[in-house]
């Protein structure tokens, strides 16, 4: 009786033992997330075009200034002025453009990451997806590996373009020409090198976990923005400057590309003050000599206060630590992301739906 109504399927048992190949998730992921991926492409494409448009004249001005000899001639000073003038701070970390750019990782992470599981759970489609032959935790793992890899490739390419834009400011020899210098840490550190993809992946994995826990897209996006903001503020304000012990110098003119962590003054080997009080400046520095360079005020104070026993100390991170810092930050962010993915998969596998 049973044999009649349930016809034998000879190859079925062999087939059933094998898991479905992972590559099948590529097309599935693409079809389900192509709108989000297209939005990311448009966002990063716009960023690339903007960087290209403002970066090309900057690079031309830099090349012209560097090629000019002799450097002290009026023509060369003009070219140096042109280069310094092109720096309109559009991409400075605290300018409106810079602030918007620093939102790019979290925008990608929140709007691409939170719906991956959040929308499935909110609309009930997880009942479809998790009851197919592929298996639910493999389905989730495939998406949570594939999407971050794609996002990392896209943001990594965009990060190269950001690095290209800034490259003239950190090039050796700029100081001799009095070209504008910046610390590589102060200029959108999170949007260059490995930090950009790493922050994007971190935001994405925060988003997927939030979607899994909250089970609704919009609250999960808000939670992602909040979680990312906390992480970014803690990193920028506390963690990053502690990756490596800062260098210490008593030179009144630390390198223009240095990231100044703190400055203070000592007298007779003891801490005197963080900033010279006005009374002291008025007494000893009544006629400050003409300043030069970026750190002119400190330099001049150091000059006029030094004869009176005051020494200025500066702790700073040198520009040469840019890449070590990039790898440290990228490393811990990727470790955090891997942990968040593992927690999310565990929840998908074990949490009752």
């Amino acid at each position: 009786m049973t044999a009649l109504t349930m016809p034998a399927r000879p190859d079925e048992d062999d087939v059933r033992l094998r898991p479905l190949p992972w590559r099948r998730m590529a097309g599935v992921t693409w079809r389900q997330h192509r709108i989000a991926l297209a939005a990311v492409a448009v966002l990063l494409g716009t960023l690339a075009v903007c960087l290209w448009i403002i970066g090309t004249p900057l690079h031309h001005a830099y090349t012209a200034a560097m090629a000019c000899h002799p450097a002290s001639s009026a023509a060369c000073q003009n070219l140096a002025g042109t280069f310094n003038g092109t720096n309109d701070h559009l991409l400075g970390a605290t300018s409106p453009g810079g602030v918007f750019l620093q939102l790019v990782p979290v925008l990608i992470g929140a709007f691409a990451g939170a719906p991956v599981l959040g929308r499935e759970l909110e609309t009930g489609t997880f009942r479809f997806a998790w009851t197919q032959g592929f298996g639910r935790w493999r389905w989730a793992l495939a998406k949570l590996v594939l999407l971050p890899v794609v996002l990392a490739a896209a943001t990594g390419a965009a990060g190269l373009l950001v690095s290209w834009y800034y490259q003239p400011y950190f090039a050796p020899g700029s100081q001799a020409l009095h070209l504008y210098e910046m610390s590589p840490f102060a200029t959108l550190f999170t949007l260059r090198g490995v930090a950009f993809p790493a922050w994007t992946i971190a935001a994405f994995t925060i988003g997927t976990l939030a979607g899994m826990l909250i089970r609704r897209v919009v609250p999960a996006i808000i939670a992602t923005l909040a979680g990312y903001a906390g992480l970014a503020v803690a990193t920028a304000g506390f963690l990053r400057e502690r990756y490596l012990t800062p260098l210490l110098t008593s030179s009144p003119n630390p390198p223009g590309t240095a990231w100044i962590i703190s400055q203070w003054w000592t007298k007779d080997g003891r801490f005197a003050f963080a900033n010279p009080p006005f009374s002291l400046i008025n007494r000893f520095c009544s006629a400050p000599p003409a300043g030069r360079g970026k750190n002119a005020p400190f330099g001049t104070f150091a000059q006029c206060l030094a004869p009176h026993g005051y020494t200025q100390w500066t702790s700073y991170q040198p520009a040469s630590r840019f890449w070590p810092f990039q790898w440290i930050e990228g490393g811990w962010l990727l470790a955090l992301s891997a942990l968040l993915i593992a927690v999310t998969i565990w929840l998908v596998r074990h949490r009752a739906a």
Partner: protein
Amino acid sequence: MNVVEASGLGKRYGGTWAVRECTLEIPAGRVAALVGPNGAGKSTLLNLAVGLSVPSAGEITVLGGRPAGSRAALDGIAFVAQDTPLYKNLSVADMIYLTRSLNWRFDQPYAKARLAGLGIPLKRKAGKLSGGQQAQLALTLALARRPRLLILDEPVAMLDPVARHDFMATVLAATAADGVSVLLSSHVLTELERVASYLILLSRGQVRLAGDVGDLLAARGQASLEELAMAYLRETRTPEVPR
């Protein structure tokens, strides 16, 4: 072979048992109807059978001893959840692609022929289909997987009478042609009359009655499945508290 076997099965949400002390053996080759009032635990029991939920007590296996929710189990079961969830922003063709990609077996010619017969365009977004068409799409995708067991959770609750009839006709045709076993839940008893040959009556999380519909009717002297269910639910209903 039993398509579903449960022993001492229980599922607790917080302090409430949605299903408890449930022991069942649903034979293969049947259309089994899981009947009960709203909140009786029908969806919970079906979610346990497909592995979407994990039991709080006891155990449940499907298709002759495969753990519910395991890969081997999911390979042989097609599940259409309540309100037939589909990706609303994907086209019908994309839904076919997804289902085919996520399973070893998928009868694409069958799916396309059936959707063409129903007049459901492949390019239309799933969310733009009518309720009846969405239910038919979900059922078509499930049947194209060539499952041994088809599990349907309240498949006709949202449908108008014509769509209900068409839906049930498809289910019946599939069981007749392929020998698919079916387990479906419903609180609409009239629809089950024509299709169900095995009945499980669930009330307040517990199995009150289970068995072959013909045997049950004969044993209890009822004329129809509806009468039988009603009589049984009346017997076990909450007594009125005098005021």
